[in-house]
């Protein structure tokens, strides 16, 4: 509110549905190309990802133009050079995401013999990667980068939510500057969280295979609960340590971001 900025507002629909859209569009196109036109797998996945990236570009454009136009009374300008500079970058990221998800889904259907079809697997992986990106990544780029002007650990007050950092090290800050920051910590952390989720959830049933008996199946559940417990305790210790080191812990200002 009343803080005109040059940050790209990519309000498609929240991360999980938007990534699921990417992956499902790419998966459907690739599976059509493979089954109806018998194209090679790599080519089909590449073309599917290309279609998904193009569709993602249209969604990014309508989101930015729509949000900015709807804030006319706050004197928020629509920067057409931002559309030109940001949308191709986001389409590139969308291409990489879709391509990787489709490769994973294709390997699951063809090599691992998963019973689900490619499109459905890609959809599920899209939701998963979007949810993990949203929950892990947002904390490390949204809160840290866009609200550098508030005290560490103070949480995000709803009245403060429009007061983002608008000036960069040099000139006005834009969305690509934020991505540059995220690529250092938020991106790797999101990747680690995604990899750990996939690995640990598969690991417990690989070590304690439920098909080898009911007792071993129960052991896999116990192992899963133990992992969750260890992670909760570890995270709690880490959070308390970080707040003691870097900032005050203000309980009354804890508003979820």
């Amino acid at each position: 509110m009343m803080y005109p900025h040059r940050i790209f507002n990519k309000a498609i629909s929240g991360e999980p549905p938007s990534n699921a859209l990417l992956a499902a569009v790419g998966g459907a196109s690739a599976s059509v190309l493979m089954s109806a036109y018998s194209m090679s797998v790599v080519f089909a996945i590449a073309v599917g990802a290309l279609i998904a990236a193009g569709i993602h570009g249209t969604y990014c454009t309508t989101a930015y133009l729509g949000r900015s136009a709807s804030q006319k009374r706050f004197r928020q300008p629509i920067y057409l050079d931002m559309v030109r500079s940001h949308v191709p970058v986001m389409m590139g990221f969308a291409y990489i995401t879709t391509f990787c998800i489709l490769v994973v889904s294709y390997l699951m259907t063809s090599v691992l013999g998963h019973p689900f079809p490619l499109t459905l697997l890609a959809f599920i992986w899209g939701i998963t990667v979007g949810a993990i990106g949203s929950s892990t990544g947002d904390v490390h780029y949204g809160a840290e980068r866009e609200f550098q002007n508030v005290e560490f650990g103070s949480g995000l007050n709803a009245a403060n939510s429009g007061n983002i950092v608008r000036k960069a090290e040099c000139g006005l800050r834009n969305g690509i500057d934020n991505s540059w920051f995220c690529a250092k910590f938020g991106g790797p952390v999101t990747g680690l969280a995604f990899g750990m989720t996939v690995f640990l959830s598969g690991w417990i049933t690989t070590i304690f295979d439920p098909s080898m008996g009911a007792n071993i199946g129960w052991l896999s559940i116990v192992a899963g609960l133990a992992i969750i417990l260890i992670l909760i305790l570890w995270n709690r210790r880490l959070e308390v340590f970080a707040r003691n080191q870097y900032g005050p812990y203000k309980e009354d200002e804890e508003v979820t971001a």
Partner: protein
Amino acid sequence: MSAGGSGGGAAEAIPQNKLIAFGAAGGLIAIYLSYFMVQFAGPAFSFIGALGAICAIVWGAAAVRRVANYGLGTGVPSIGMLALGMGVVATIFGLAIGGIAGPVVAFVTAMVIGLVIGALANRIIGMGIPIMEQSMTEIAGAGTLAIVGLSTAMTGTFMFDVILTEVIATGYIALIFIVAGIAILHPFNANLGPDEKQDRTLSTAFEKGAIAMVMAGIVSQFQPVHPLLPQSLSDWPYGMFLSASTASMLSGTHMMWLEQVSCQRKRRNRNEHGTCCP
């Protein structure tokens, strides 16, 4: 005035009743027209089903706009997903028992589910949004018509046996779910703000509905359901990809095409990819 809407009823240049008529009547008429045109004139006309889906998507986006204007900021994506969730349940139920009346049965079922969910949200959860019941009913109906319309565009029919094998078992229902769901929720989410206008939101809905239609067109390449015309004609309205198979279809005879269709179906049931030679 909050960022999540004006906290009251939305200003409307086009009254909601006209949009209800546009979505419900337009959607159902287009779905039935598509079905009969495919039967009598050829599979190329299945695209009319997607036009019906666009009508339903515009109606759904208008209903989301109306209810979300009461201040559902981050609830807008959820309400769109809810629409398609109700829609999938109602579609499968309606098409399974309805036969030729399938779309109507699915539509009515969806409206009943939506009414119950809206009443639950208002009476039990106590959201206190005056138009909640009506809007949830509308959103559920719009989601169902979008699913049935896109399925009809993909396969050329809404008969449950075909939908089950060609849309649900092949996983394309996931594509329909997300493409139509985002087309319903994205317009208001993208235009959220105090200066949101109905015409801008609805034209975004038209555009996103058209993207859903393009995706239905791509998937329809895969559907050898009505081998009445050669492949080159059936993919005429979409013309997405020219392919080697189109050329081979043109040179082959009609019988070869029929054999390929049955062979492709068998191979797909065995979960194999690749061409099949007769």
